[in-house]
């Protein structure tokens, strides 16, 4: 069984950065801010590379939609073990309004073109927390989906997936081709070794535009306002359990 895997790689603000809202409340500051491969996409990449190492897959394709800088995360993906990378170039202005619905159509088109057997995406991006792209991509393609995967096993043309859901763990079995979205505990991603970083230079990186793929990225949403959450107020101290109960009753909570 030699699968072709497509992995979504989004360039998002690095998790350690202190986010600042723009003064005009139109968004967050991204100029000059450190960006990195979305951590859940890193986990997705790791899973794909492990499948290749287990000889269950023979090609891993990394895809990123975004402005020119998105190529940085594609180079990271190539250094982690992807065989080739696709950059769907979306100019910066239009990227501000690019939504999962558009990305899912782009991924679906590429998956069909490349005759992909498995799409692995991060469960969500840490900038917008949408948690939609995987689900939408599966719907566009009419493929089965296994989201929030914490374990993935492949046998013949079937995937057994353990999912982390609100009630606990759910194990499902789906037929390939399918979409899987990676959750935190699926694996621990590797570091790109220095030799692999250097070798990644030679791997192919192909550019597309959404138009090439026949996808219309006209925004369907308008961002009205982006602001910081209200500052957390300090709590109060009480002297005894009785007083605590009294205070809670006063707040109207039963």
């Amino acid at each position, binding site marked *: 069984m030699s699968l072709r895997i497509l992995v979504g790689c989004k360039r998002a603000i690095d998790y350690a950065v202190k986010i600042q809202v723009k003064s005009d409340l139109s968004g967050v500051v991204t100029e000059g801010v450190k960006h990195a491969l979305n951590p859940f996409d890193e986990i997705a990449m790791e899973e794909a590379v492990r499948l290749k190492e287990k000889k269950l897959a023979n090609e891993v394709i990394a895809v990123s939609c975004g402005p020119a800088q998105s190529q*940085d995360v594609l180079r990271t993906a190539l*250094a982690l073990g992807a065989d080739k990378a696709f950059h769907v170039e979306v100019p910066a202005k239009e990227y501000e309004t690019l939504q999962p619905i558009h990305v899912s159509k782009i991924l679906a088109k590429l998956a069909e073109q490349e005759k992909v057997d498995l799409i692995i995406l991060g469960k969500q991006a840490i900038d917008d927390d949408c948690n939609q792209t995987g689900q939408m991509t599966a719907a566009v393609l009419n493929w089965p989906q296994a989201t929030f995967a914490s374990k993935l096993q492949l046998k013949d043309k079937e995937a057994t997936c353990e999912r982390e859901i609100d009630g606990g763990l759910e194990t499902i079995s789906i037929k390939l081709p399918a979409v899987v979205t990676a959750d935190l505990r699926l694996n621990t991603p590797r*570091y*790109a*070794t*220095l*030799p*692999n*970083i*250097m070798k990644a230079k030679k791997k192919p990186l192909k550019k597309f535009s959404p138009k090439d793929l026949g996808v219309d990225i006209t925004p369907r949403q308008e961002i009205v306002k982006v602001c910081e959450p209200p500052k957390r107020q300090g709590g109060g101290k009480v002297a005894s359990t009785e007083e605590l109960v009294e205070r809670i009753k006063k707040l109207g909570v039963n």
Partner: protein
Amino acid sequence: MFAIRNIGTKTFRLCRNLAQKNVANLSTSTDTINRSLYNFSDEEIQLKETVGRLAREKIEPKVREMEQQGDVLPEIRQLMFDNGLMGIEIPGKYGGTESSFFSSILVVEELGKVDGSISVMCDIQNTLINTLLMQLGSDYLKDKYLPRLATDMIGSFCLSESSSGSDAFAMRTSASKNGDYYTINGNKLWISNSKHAGVFFVMANVNPSLGYKGITCFVVDRDTPGLTIGKNEDKLGLLASSTCAVHFDDVKVHEKNILGKIGQGYKYAISILNEGRIGIGAQMIGLAQGCFDKTIAYTRERQQFGQRIFDFQGMQHQISHVATQLEAARLLVYNAARLKEAGKPFIKEAAMAKYFASEVACQTTSKCIDWMGGVGYTKDYPIEKYYRDCKVGTIYEGTSNIQLNTIAKLIDADDNFY
């Protein structure tokens, strides 16, 4: 009279506008190219970020433990090899990373931010051992050792002895010829990496009557009979970096293990140390920066007299001064590295870089302890370790005084002063 004044003002405004327009034209024609020393290639950026992450996430948690044990942990040594940090310039066909000298400098700097011992281990391997082998090794030596150095073997450079440090050519270790073998006798001291090294590049004199022109470089396997590793020096800092005596008692080495040419060892030593000291410069700026970053974070939190200690003007002046010195040191190191890569003369700049970076690191770390106050003096905080670790920077791979001698010699030899 007013008319003349007006002409003057108009002309002045015209000239100024023209000047501004010219400047604007200049900047638009060059603004897409970053000509600062912070101009890194994509690979260099990736390498720097990856090693920075690796160092912070995997190495930093083990730093105290390694210092207490006086040794680099086996898993950290393995990590260095597995991630390609020990063969940065070695070509891919030998299993190396196949990157550039500047990449090595960036890697050594990033490691220095976290631990000076790990940084120096990486620096010696890449800038001394690997480079010597790649520049001078026969195909036999390259094929035999480069793959090992890239994947699992540490190398040591044996030059100094108890009676020859700065006066390196006064070395007494000898190598006498017996057919196609040489027998090495002598004692090397202060040998870094020696505890775990699998191969030693030994400078020995094949013909003491020729003085330094008899010094030859031998590649000696650790398990060669007669080679013993002596005691590890009990040092002030860099405790996880082994610094042992290496004894040679009738150590027989085949002549095919000679690196380069007989009697040229002195040249090789000087030339490799010219490059290696850029690496030490990188280690020093890494140490200084790592210490500085942690300290500034503290000064922004710690409050006294109702304000952050960072807010006191006295503190700000000291901090700015140190930050400026550190920036200057980094630029000297980066510039020397880029000059070397470009094949331009770099010896004076390299000496300046090592001298300045090591002195700045000592000043920076000392100031950082002051700024931290009492906690800077305790081992619970990482600051005092940086202070101890960087002290050797003004001593090894050419003391500050030797660097100053070198710089003066080159100034004197410069025909541009008249």
